[in-house]
């Protein structure tokens, strides 16, 4: 049931993207999220699209797998499209059924915004698919390090993040297990009237909460027992190393940005 979910999941492979430094990947994603808003016409959106699919290609993640995992999100994208389509009231009227009017601008905005959304999802999924949670955390901790001077709890944040990322698969497994146990007791999660289905969530959520709290406590005790004292003076086994690829990738993104600014209308 939960097998097809790909969020927060790492797919090991030997690719250029996998080998990049998490700091550069995080920076690129952050910049990507910003520059995607520069795009405002067909040409610039095409550039963004080509860039996104180039990165997917370089990561060697099978497109079919990506598609399978993102299917549920595609509904959201479609929904965004429809929302824009029906609620934008600018430009010339293209379709007029009396009670609904579809404007030219609506169609355009629908495409733009849903594509923007789609590319964002693709790129961010790509980050988690090619980077282990621990790498992401290390990268983030290192990038945010300057904030320590402002007394921002960087290490604690990173630790919280790595713990939550680490337990996503565990939680998924557990959800699957409890779901199956309750299905065996006659619960229907996937069919039946809506109210029934909402009610069916309770026998799933309560055991999940109970076990999560138990696990949190056990984890705290285990950390304490191993002498965890926070980030002060803590050294790292995994060292981050900035390579030529990382510089090249950033440079490439800069080129893309310049192209976007040049071609935007």
């Amino acid at each position, binding site marked *: 049931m939960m*097998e*097809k979910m790909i969020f927060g999941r790492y*797919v090991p*492979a030997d690719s250029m993207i996998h080998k990049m430094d998490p700091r550069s990947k995080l920076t690129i994603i952050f910049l990507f999220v910003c520059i995607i808003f520069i795009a405002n016409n067909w040409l610039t959106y095409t550039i963004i699209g080509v860039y996104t699919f180039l990165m997917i290609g370089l990561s060697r*993640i*099978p497109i*079919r*797998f990506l598609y*399978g*995992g993102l299917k549920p999100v595609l509904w959201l994208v479609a929904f965004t499209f429809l929302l824009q389509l029906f609620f934008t009231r600018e430009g010339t009227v293209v379709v007029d059924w009396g009670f609904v009017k579809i404007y030219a601008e609506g169609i355009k905005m629908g495409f733009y915004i849903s594509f923007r959304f789609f590319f964002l999802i693709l790129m961010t999924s790509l980050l988690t698919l090619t980077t282990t949670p621990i790498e992401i955390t290390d990268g983030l901790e290192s990038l945010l390090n300057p904030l320590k001077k402002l007394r921002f709890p960087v290490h604690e944040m990173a630790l919280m993040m790595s713990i939550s990322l680490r337990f996503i698969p565990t939680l998924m497994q*557990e959800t699957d*297990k*409890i779901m*199956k*146990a*309750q*299905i*065996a*007791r*006659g*619960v*229907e999660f996937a069919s039946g009237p809506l109210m029934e289905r909402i009610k069916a969530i*309770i*026998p799933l959520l*309560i*055991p999940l909460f*109970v*076990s999560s709290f138990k696990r949190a406590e056990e984890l705290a005790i285990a950390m304490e027992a191993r002498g965890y004292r926070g980030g002060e003076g803590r050294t790292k086994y995994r060292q981050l190393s900035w390579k030529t690829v990382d510089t090249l990738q950033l440079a490439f993104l800069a080129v893309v940005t310049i192209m976007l600014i040049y071609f935007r209308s």
Partner: protein
Amino acid sequence: MDISLSHVDYRYQANTPFERLAIQDVSIEIPSGTYLAIIGHTGSGKSTVLQHLNALLIPSEGTVTIGDREIKAHQKNKDLRPVRQRVGIVFQFPEHQLFEETVEKDIIFGPMNFGVSEAEAKKRARIALKQVGLTEEILDKSPFDLSGGQMRRVAIAGVLAMDPDVIVLDEPTAGLDPRGRKEIMDMFYALHNERKLSTILVTHSMEDAARYADQIVIMQQGKVVKKGSPEEIFSAPQDLMQMGLDVPEVVRFQLKLEEKGNIKLEKIFLSIEQLSAAVAEQLRRGVTS
């Protein structure tokens, strides 16, 4: 109710980079009233087989027949509820599935999902509670206030109250102390005999398999490598040891005894009583001749 698996394959996460063939060409017959033990190492596919027994998993290839219902690969299998009512599964650590405010509500949850009236479900809850060796006082308690062993028994009662014809047990004694283990296993054995349930036990305890089962299936790397009665299975203990599986203590003792004492008993014995009787018999004959 008869259950049979014929040439069943199951693939986890088909069409993804994580695709994995969990079981391959598994064929098992479970006639009504059998006590079947499925034995194997972790990852041998025994839990996957178990989930096919009440259609929690639909085979990727092959057919599962549960009573008069056929569940085939590559087709829509709708309305599986009736199947699930007749096959109760006690999962590993079943206490994790408890969620209701009181023990009683949790036990009647299963039966009521299957359309049993509340009064009838409550009646069944009391019977089931007695069967698992608990008293009625705990009916109004919160299941989360109970001890681990009690929680497990409540969860088991919840499955028994569904009144299944077949009960599937996935390592029901994992994490219990030796006494609790024996109590639970004996309880299932008594139920098996009283209610004429088919029982399928997934375990890696050879002792339990030898003591209770009348059929044993041994799985390794997703395949059935051996099946037969305990006598047949354990008559070739060397094969088992080669597969890295344990042999019951009694059998190990008998083998040692035969080796050191330079005697040969006529067959492999599976209980201490039988073995000691046979040894005594052998000794008596030794004295008289």
